[in-house]
């Protein structure tokens, strides 16, 4: 599988964030998006996920999916956890909801439990998400990546609030995903511990005017 993006432009609030941005990504590759605050890293990820309309350019996935929407996991700044549901219930819902035609695992329950234990959440799986710390919430959001298989991971500052051990787990999980033929596009300021190409966004557009 391959993703080709060419001449992308994204506009927010009547202001062009970036123009003429292109990259290609093959199976097993990771792309790290860097740049100063406001350079458009999050906007790029949201545009790739189909959550922001493109002002120009096109994104194509081969073989022939219509868009990246059904292929992507998106982990943004918000963790998408319902405080009143337990960690397990949160994950169970997203696993059922995001499972696609071929994404439905043979044994979804085992898969959810594997995802929880991989991120060290097995012991607090029955705790309502409201009682989690910021790092634990982030880990619960990241556990979604493993609960359902989707080939493209769009990660916006995935290591935020994670301790050193969890960052190591995240790096290992990402490496395993790449070795499995998956793809990752991550926006980050901190190094992720991955062999990855870098896409540097300028961030001079609009600057301090």
């Amino acid at each position: 599988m391959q993703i080709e993006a060419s001449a992308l432009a994204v506009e927010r609030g009547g202001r062009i964030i970036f123009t003429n941005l292109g990259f290609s990504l093959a199976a097993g590759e990771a792309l790290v998006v860097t740049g100063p605050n406001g350079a458009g890293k999050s906007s790029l990820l949201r545009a790739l996920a189909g959550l922001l309309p493109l002002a120009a350019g096109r994104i194509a996935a081969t073989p022939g999916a219509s868009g990246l929407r059904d292929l992507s996991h998106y982990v943004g700044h918000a963790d998408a956890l319902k405080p009143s549901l337990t960690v397990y219930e949160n994950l169970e819902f997203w696993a059922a909801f995001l499972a696609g035609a071929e994404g439905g695992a043979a044994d979804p329950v085992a898969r959810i439990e594997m995802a929880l234990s991989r991120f060290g959440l097995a012991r607090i799986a029955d705790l309502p998400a409201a009682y989690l710390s910021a790092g634990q919430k982030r880990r619960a959001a990241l556990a979604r990546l493993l609960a359902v298989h989707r080939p493209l991971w769009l990660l916006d500052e995935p290591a935020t609030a994670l301790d050193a051990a969890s960052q190591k787990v995240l790096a290992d999980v990402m490496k395993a995903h790449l070795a499995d033929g998956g793809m990752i596009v991550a926006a980050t300021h901190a190094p992720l511990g991955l062999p990855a190409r870098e896409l540097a966004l300028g961030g001079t557009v609009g600057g301090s005017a």
Partner: protein
Amino acid sequence: MSKRRPSALAALLVRELRITRRIGGAASMGVVFFLCLVTITPFAIGPDLKLLARIGPAILWIAALLSTLLGLDRLFQADHDDGSLDLLFLGETPLELIVLVKCLSHWLMTGLPLVAASPVFGLMLGLTPQALGEVALSLLVGTPALTLIGAIGAGLTVSLRRGGLLLSILVLPISVPILIFGVAAASAEPGGLVPFMTPFPILCGLTLGAIALTPFATAAALRHGAE
């Protein structure tokens, strides 16, 4: 692909019902608000039992309309605030069906309790047994339309901090037809000018129309708001 869809929607319904039940109060709060509105009206109008019995169905309907709108501003906003709405876009399930399921869950937890409570509160207004039945039946058919139309407002105000009042301002004018035919059905008297079966089918038609059309409007509003 089509085999997966029911399970995604079923998972969504279970989640919505669970959240409402856990948070607690959403259902009971609507009913208590309903009760408050129904009980303060006689204080405002005075102890004229005949008058109360005549306008009772209208009071119950207005109270049901306001109680339905009360909790609707959080219908999508909670998901918007915690990032869930982004992920709901990423599923294979069409947004229109997601809207429909969320409205169904909202109606089950707030609309249905109102319908169940309306005969009890109708007694307080001195309604006749027949009027009690007509009010309950018209509310049963009409409240889903109120939820569905209110959802358009909830979709439009999804990114606004305090969208509750704006939602009501947007939605109240559109819900006038429901109110007219709902109250007409609820206050039909035997041998009166308008028999029950004249406005009631129109009310049913309005609700069916709302089920068919409003999810598209709400989904469009959400897509626009998500940018």
